[in-house]
């Protein structure tokens, strides 16, 4: 059938004509229209909140609307694919890329649905470390005590994670390995998300929950939980009294954390990515932006484009290794 083929060809030519000229030449004027910030998760979560903060700030700065578009599903992969694979690489579609949609996904799958080469990073803006939380009236005073108790009674530890291959699971695995506990002897309860998990912790149905600082904030302020350790090279300013796991001599290094970066589809004109990199560097120093981040307890931690890529590459190696050892790499 020649007819449809000709039509396709004509369409492709027309599309090509429309596509080619403006993208490269006009980086100077960028942005000339609304920019879409794709959040591959539901509204109200951490990724969504940080996206709205950025959209609000940059929208005002550049005087062009920034639309946060939520495309949840498939653990974030559906939305991430829509932003990186289906959208035009013209700088007007941005993915708020996090560990779940990048390093963790790539590490857990032998044939990932998205690879690092699919995106170009402009900057990492958030690094939200993991914390070990217990019920407010739990018997353990510090992380060392908890670790010793788990070593003695691994079968009695009931802990909650989010999904079978989420950050909680990897953090716990790293911890169990370092203190010499067989992870399979502990009891893992898979929950829907941090809110669900903390409700189970506060109700005494599980003994330990591992989530990020921002996620723990509500229950912490409500006085329902206590934090025994934060998994970070240094303490975090929102929880200055919580010592790091390394300080307490229990764990070394940080292999898992929550982070968020600005990512473009591969092939986006370099000047536009550079413009965002510079803008993100300035934004993460602006007190007005930092005040907004503090309200949602998001730990702002800027990395430039090159270092973001190196950081994610290192994470991919870490997750690939851990996923294989846990036995969840497929």
């Amino acid at each position: 059938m020649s007819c449809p083929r000709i039509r396709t060809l004509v369409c492709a030519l027309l599309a090509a004509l429309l596509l080619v000229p403006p993208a490269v030449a006009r980086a100077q004027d960028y942005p000339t229209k609304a920019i879409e910030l794709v959040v591959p998760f539901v509204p109200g979560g951490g990724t969504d909140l940080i996206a709205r903060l950025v959209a609000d700030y940059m929208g005002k700065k550049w005087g062009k609307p920034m639309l946060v578009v939520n495309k949840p599903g498939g653990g974030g992969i559906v939305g991430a694919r829509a932003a990186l694979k289906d959208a035009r690489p013209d700088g007007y579609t941005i993915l708020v890329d996090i560990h779940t949609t990048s390093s963790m996904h790539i590490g857990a799958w032998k044939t990932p649905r998205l690879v690092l080469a699919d995106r170009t990073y402009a900057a990492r803006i958030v690094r939200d470390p993991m914390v070990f939380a217990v019920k407010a009236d739990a018997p353990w005073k510090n992380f060392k005590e908890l670790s010793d108790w788990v070593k003695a009674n691994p079968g009695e530890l009931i802990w909650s994670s989010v999904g079978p291959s989420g950050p909680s699971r990897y953090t716990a695995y790293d911890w169990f390995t370092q203190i010499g506990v067989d992870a399979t002897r502990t009891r893992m309860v898979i929950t829907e998300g941090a809110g669900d998990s903390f409700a189970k912790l506060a109700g005494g149905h599980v003994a330990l929950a591992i989530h990020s600082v921002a996620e723990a904030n509500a229950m912490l302020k409500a006085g329902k939980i206590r934090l025994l350790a934060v998994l970070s090279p240094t303490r975090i300013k929102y929880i200055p009294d919580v010592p790091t796991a390394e300080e307490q001599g229990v764990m070394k290094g940080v292999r898992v954390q929550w982070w968020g970066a600005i990512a473009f589809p591969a092939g986006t004109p370099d000047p536009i990515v550079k413009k965002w990199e510079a803008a993100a560097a300035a934004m993460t120093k602006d007190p007005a932006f930092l005040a907004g981040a503090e309200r949602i307890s998001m730990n702002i931690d800027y990395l430039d484009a090159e270092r973001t890529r190196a950081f994610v590459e290192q994470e991919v190696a870490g997750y690939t290794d851990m996923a294989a050892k846990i036995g969840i790499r497929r």
Partner: protein
Amino acid sequence: MDVLPQLAHGFGAALSPTNLLMAVVGSLLGTLVGVLPGLGPTAAIAILFPLTTVLPPVPAIIMLAAIYYGAMYGGSTTAILLNIPGEVASVPTCLDGYPMARQGRGGVALGISAIGSFFAGMLGVTALTFFAPFLADQALRFGPPEYFGLMVLAFTVVASLSSASLVKGFAMAALGYFLSLIGLGPSTAEPRFTFGWTPLMSGVELIALVVGLFALSEVFLGLEQSRVAIAEKITNVFPRWADLKEAFPAILRGTGIGFFLGLLPGCAPGVTVFMAYDAERRIAKHPERFGRGAIEGVASPESANNATSSAGFIPLLALGIPASAPLAVLLGGLLVYGLQPGPLLFQKNPDFVWTVIASLYIGNIVLLILNLPLIGMWVWLTRIPYGILGPLILLLSVLGAYSVRNSMFDVAVSLVFGAIGYFLRKYQWPLAPLLLAFILGPLLEKYMIQSLSMSGGSPLIFFQRWLSLVLIVGAALLFLASLVLVRYTGRRVKEETAEELAL
């Protein structure tokens, strides 16, 4: 705690002209969006959220809460008048609301729905005012085994939603459960029935399913029958005293069921409305009236819907746990304004908390005042010739299916289920059990796996904890009772009408 002076102070702030205006605008906008098929409270809040960010925190949250209430009321309106639930929580309302509308009592159904919602909302907010932190703590006692028991209990509803034939009902429930399996498994994240196809990984979207099964199939049926909307003239818009007397106990029961179950995070209106409807039917003297325009069948689930939504504010404000999707969006709104829910919120931002609580009262009143006179306008909607209304619904439905997660795939899903729903309804296979199983199936699975993880694989955990034991035994008894009831109802219906009834 000096609740009353603080509340009075809150009223003072909430009654300021600006804030009052926000409540009115929010209710109107919410109702407007809620009336569109497929656009429920979650979508309404998510769509209108950016609009509110230009406002200072207090009026913004007042407006969001008003949008939430308004959207729920809007959903009931289309459920009653057009047999199209805007969201899952309105499905039981269709069962008796639409028959009422066809009998020319649509106005009464809308009135009862508004009054029931108002009453339940007020009661819910009162409880929120006085017991929020205390009740929130109680809710935490529900662990996975207790939720499992609750879901088993909810599943017995399938039996009484299948009055035409138990076999048909359970077949539809099985189909619903199967559909819910598609996508990533809740605890293994293992793809199930996706055939390696990425769009299927995220499963069948609930709203796309509802829009397809109910809204689109309704349009197809309507076009086929070249229906003249609702032919009967709607004369009495306001409920009569006798209607109120009949509906009032049902409103009370619906409020009770909706409120106490609504305190539990994870028990969304989609679950409690079915349980309220079912309870009403079980205790009715003439259960055969249900599905044919029983006023209690509208009053009870509508009250339960609002009671659940109001109760959801308790774990939200006191602990920061959102009980349902729209509340999760609302939580995001609170966080953006730097208002971290929790007991500290009551101490650190008392002005804000009490203003919001006061505005919840006001929102309920505004909604009642706005909606009773507006019933006439909604009813007018049904007089639009079907040739115009049908395509319009079709367009809005597709828009609704798309907007949930901005996905064309969901539009395709809704079209497919529109076709399936058309045939199912034509041959009288009940849709309600399908939807119920679709919602409850994954929850049942999740709570079972969580419980078994806690016990290290031993199913004894369900019987060792007294609360879950009570729930499971109760479920078994209820199931047997409803089998008897369904037989009886089926016989009565046949005696009276010599025809089979389909929900």
